[in-house]
């Protein structure tokens, strides 16, 4: 479980090199922007995976916390605060609000929890569209400044005026997120998350506090979602209520389910593959959501573990066949 076979490691290394070298072989600015956005979405979906996939609590407020981070960074940087200060502050605000939302809502279970969090998400979306003084109403906030340059002693300052440094910023954040989540999931705390997911009364009986465990997971997930939202705002340069809407949550959910719940690589695969597939299916227009809606139903019925989970099953079958 903890150590991967050699060919898997080689695959990961190849993916990492491909990601690092990406600016050299993707010259198209539009595709490049989509890839950068996929990195941001991968961070958010990985966080969603922590609360839905590993803890088993279907939080549908994830888009709302993404939006809190985005609006937080937008409002603070417009007020003249540096991005590097605004980003952690916005993420902390998301975590803080998450704590106070989780406190009542995590007392509910199953679909009740999904509905309560969804209601919170809708309230936040309505507020974002109507509190014109703070959020700019339905038009949102434009002209969010790019991250300020980081001074590096020998090389000179790293500036964020072009797409390439923003891409590396997002990539670094994604790698950091995956690293943190990996340490978290394979720790004792991660095991207790899965214990709560698999059997809450049993977890309670062996001395895990299910409520505290769920709450910590929820707060961490929302912190990371806020972080992703903040970076989204700085990279896109504008936020509107749709960044906090429930459609954002549903998109994350599609990436998560199709990619693979409760696997670390699933959310990344989903967040990359699906926006790019959507781009290539641009000619289909509105038919795309028809396909993805049906696909979501199909996958949850027949492959609840998603693409990565399905691949694993296949791998195990091949291994079993070899041993025979």
């Amino acid at each position, binding site marked *: 479980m903890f150590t991967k076979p050699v060919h898997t490691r080689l695959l990961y290394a190849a993916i990492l090199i491909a990601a690092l070298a990406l600016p050299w072989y993707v010259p198209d600015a539009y595709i490049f922007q989509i890839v950068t956005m996929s990195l941001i979405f991968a961070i958010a979906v990985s966080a969603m995976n922590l609360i*839905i996939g590993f803890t*088993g609590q*279907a939080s549908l407020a994830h888009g709302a916390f993404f939006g809190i981070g985005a609006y937080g960074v937008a409002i603070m940087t417009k007020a003249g605060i540096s991005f590097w200060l605004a980003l952690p502050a916005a993420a902390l605000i998301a975590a803080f609000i998450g704590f106070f939302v989780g*406190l*009542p*809502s995590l*007392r*509910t*279970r*199953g*679909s*009740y929890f*999904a*509905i*309560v969090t*969804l*209601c*919170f998400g*809708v*309230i936040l979306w*309505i*507020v974002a569209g*109507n509190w014109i003084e703070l959020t700019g109403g339905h038009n949102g906030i434009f002209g969010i400044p790019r991250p300020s340059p980081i001074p590096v002693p020998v090389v000179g300052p790293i500036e964020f005026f072009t797409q390439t440094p923003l891409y590396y910023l997002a990539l670094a954040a994604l790698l950091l997120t995956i690293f943190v989540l990996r340490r978290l999931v394979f720790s004792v705390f991660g095991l207790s998350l899965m214990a709560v997911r698999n059997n809450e009364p049993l977890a309670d009986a062996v001395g895990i506090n299910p409520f505290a465990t769920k709450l910590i997971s929820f707060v961490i997930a929302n912190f990371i979602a806020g972080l992703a939202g903040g970076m989204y705002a700085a990279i896109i340069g504008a936020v509107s209520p749709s960044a906090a809407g*429930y459609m954002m949550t*549903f998109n994350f*959910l*599609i990436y998560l*389910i199709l990619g693979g719940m409760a696997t670390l690589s699933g959310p990344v695969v989903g967040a990359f593959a699906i926006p790019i597939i959507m781009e290539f299916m641009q000619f289909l*227009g*509105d*038919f*795309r*959501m*028809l396909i*993805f*809606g*049906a*696909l*979501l*139903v199909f996958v*949850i*019925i027949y492959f*609840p573990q998603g693409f990565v989970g399905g691949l694993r099953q296949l791998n195990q079958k091949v291994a079993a066949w070899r041993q025979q």
Partner: protein
Amino acid sequence: MELFLQQVFNGIMFGSTYAIVALGLTLVMGILNIPNFAHGHLYMLGGYLLYYFGVTMGLGYWFGLIFSVICLGLVGVLMERFIYRPLNNQPHINAFIAAIGALLFLEALALVVWGPQGLRVPNPHPQIVHFLGMTIGIQRLLVIMGAVALIMALHLFMKKTIMGTTIEAVAQNREGAMLTGINVNRVSAMTFAISAATAAVAASLISPIFMLSPAMGAILGMKAFVIVILGGMGSIPGAILGGYILGLIEALGGGYISAAYKDVFAFGALILILSIKPTGLFGKREV
């Protein structure tokens, strides 16, 4: 005073819609334990089917209504058979995620077939009556009357017919109902058909008053969920009462406090109540 009466009238009209939609949802949620999150989108599809049969095919309002109800009932049966029945033995949350898939599908379907712009079903009863200073459209009155008639009919069906009592039997005890020889799968399909058909009635009654749009189901579906949870899973009186109360709260809150934030009241109330009582006001213990 006149403003107040007018708001109350509008509140009762909205409440009628909410009551019927929540009624359909509570049947499915209470009886089959299926969180059919796509219920609001079935309602939306019902409105478009009325448009298709009544306006595009030119059958007129009332035939359009009948065909819309029949077609949506069939859609409900298909949904039960192909989406929810295969998920019977899987964790609850999977059915919820499948429902989100279904609602994305239905919304995209409406978008593809009928386009994003709002459509208007011509009002079959544009006459207006003045009463106690209120301006009352006949179609609005029809929404209220229609809701009452539908609720009565459903009550009689549930209490007086064998089919209705089998539904109730499955709701009370699924295994017990199986032991007495009730075909639970057939009851599930029938419940879905009734649930979807009532959504079609609600949509057909109100669509001559408001524009049809692919997004109209999402918020209404969520409100129906709020009502069902507050009124108690599977409780028909709870759904009806909850629907009317929510309609009145919204109309009065929207009229006197803030129209932009009127949806916040319903969802805020849900969060508040579930945080005090996590299984809903009259909810069963474990769902």
